[in-house]
């Protein structure tokens, strides 16, 4: 069934959009990533103008994250204190990122930079997670081997302004989570994503949070940062398409519920390997687009969209 999107000004199959939303929602519920890094490129492929795709995907992330967060709140796997610290950093970072984004747009190379950001960050994080998860699986299979202490004391524990994060079982400085929040906020504004794919590994490996609370807590931060971004896009560029968002959301919220159930059934290592594979897959696709000669060398951009 074809449906005309009032802001994007294109006609797209409604079921295709529902399916895309469902797929991304499933991942959102499983891994605690907003799925923006997937939905934005997918929307490009179905012919949505890039500016609308970026703005609308932030709105879709709000919905699927909210749905998934409620599931986590019920299981008490959200560290609200940690989430608030990350959120404060996120809002600062998002505002900074928007300034950078507008500066790059003035230079006329914003597409390339966004693509490079995707390839570099997805590539690095995907590889790191893959290696770490494979090592963890090897250790699990061979228990006599050396086992690393789960929570090491590194530089993170030597900083001042220590706060007790009871749900995470941590007593650390607020500076590292604040910096993680700022960094994720910058990425989210430049790449048009929630930033879960950066935040989740950072929380596990840098802050030493237990995997169990990482997903719920990152969802909590993502909801507010993406809401903020949605409002920024809606008020400055008028590029949030509510009909497109609604279709993606309907698919997404249903997918997210299944994802949350599925996520509980899988082991943490398996979950991480799957996420790593997915991240590397998207990274590889984007890298190929940059490296291989495109079939059409020219591209058209009309009326600022």
């Amino acid at each position, binding site marked *: 069934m074809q449906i*005309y999107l009032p802001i994007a000004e294109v006609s797209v199959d409604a079921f295709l959009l529902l399916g895309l939303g469902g797929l991304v929602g499933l991942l959102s519920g499983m891994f605690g990533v907003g799925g923006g890094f997937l939905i934005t490129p997918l929307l490009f492929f179905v012919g949505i103008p890039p500016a609308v795709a970026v703005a609308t995907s932030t709105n879709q992330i709000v919905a699927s994250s909210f749905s998934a967060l409620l599931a986590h709140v019920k299981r008490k796997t959200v560290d609200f204190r940690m989430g608030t610290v990350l959120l404060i950093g996120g809002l600062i970072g998002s505002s900074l990122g928007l300034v950078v984004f507008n500066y790059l747009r003035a230079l006329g190379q914003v597409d390339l930079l966004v693509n490079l950001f995707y390839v570099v960050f997805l590539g690095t994080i995907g590889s790191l997670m893959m290696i770490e998860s494979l090592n963890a699986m090897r250790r699990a299979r061979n228990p006599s081997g050396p086992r690393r202490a789960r929570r090491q004391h590194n530089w993170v524990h030597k900083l001042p302004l220590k706060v007790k994060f009871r749900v995470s079982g941590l007593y650390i400085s607020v500076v590292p989570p604040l910096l993680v929040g700022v960094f994720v906020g910058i990425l989210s504004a430049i790449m048009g994503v929630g930033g879960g794919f950066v935040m989740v590994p950072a929380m596990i490996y840098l802050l030493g949070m237990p995997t169990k609370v990482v997903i719920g807590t990152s969802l909590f931060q993502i909801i507010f940062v993406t809401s903020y971004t949605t409002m920024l896009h809606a008020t400055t560029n008028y590029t949030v398409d509510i009909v497109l968002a609604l279709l993606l959301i309907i698919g997404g919220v249903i997918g997210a519920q299944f994802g949350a159930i599925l996520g509980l059934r899988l082991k943490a290592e398996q979950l991480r390997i799957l996420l790593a594979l997915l991240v590397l897959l998207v990274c590889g696709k984007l890298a190929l687009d940059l490296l291989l000669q495109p079939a059409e060398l020219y591209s058209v*951009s009309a009326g600022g969209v």
Partner: protein
Amino acid sequence: MFRIILILLILTGAARAETIVLGLSQDSVSITATFDGDDILIFGAVRRDAPAPTDDGDLGVIVTVAGPDQRVSVYRKARRYGIWINTDEVEVDNAPSFYAVATSGPLQEVLRDTSDLRQEITIPRAIRSVGATVQDSAAFTEALIRIREADNLYQTQINGVDLEQDTLFMASFALPANLTEGDYVARIFLTRDGRPIDEASTVIPVQKVGLERWLYNLAHSDPLIYGMLSLVLAAAAGWAASAGFAALRR
């Protein structure tokens, strides 16, 4: 002297003896929620005050439909540092968002280049690009045409005008689903020997209606409310799904 003027007047009067009477299958195009492109039929007749001239060359009919003009940026990629990036850009000042041209016969028979240049009838003539700083800027306008032709936004239909007995004509245009809103201008040219002898034009408004119209207006006039609405909708949908699934599991 007076005689020469009189003869000229008669001659031009004779040239004006064939005029266009125009009709449209619909006065406007409404973009609804389920809009999936539309067909427009432009038809008409040649009205004659005198019998058709026999020595002025063959009669030709050309119909064009143009969407609102846009400023368009065309980028070209080149390989730099091992990756493909946009290196050159050409701004096309005026390119119609939609352009279709249909003729009653082969282009060189119904239209002369000079007339095309003056009336801006064919697609390359309808696009104006001035002040391009890149050397081969023609390649950029060609690319623009190629890309938009692939999207059905630019159409050329040679023999697309059905001309019956040099009097009745009819042309059908398929408007694609990704239309830009605005006033679409349909122009009809009557030519003899490739020179236009009469021209008629009409405006076909293309507009969003109903919910589409309301949402579009809200997004532009009250973006704050629109943004809030999007967020509330998102949160509500998220909560509803969560509550619904909880109820299902119980």
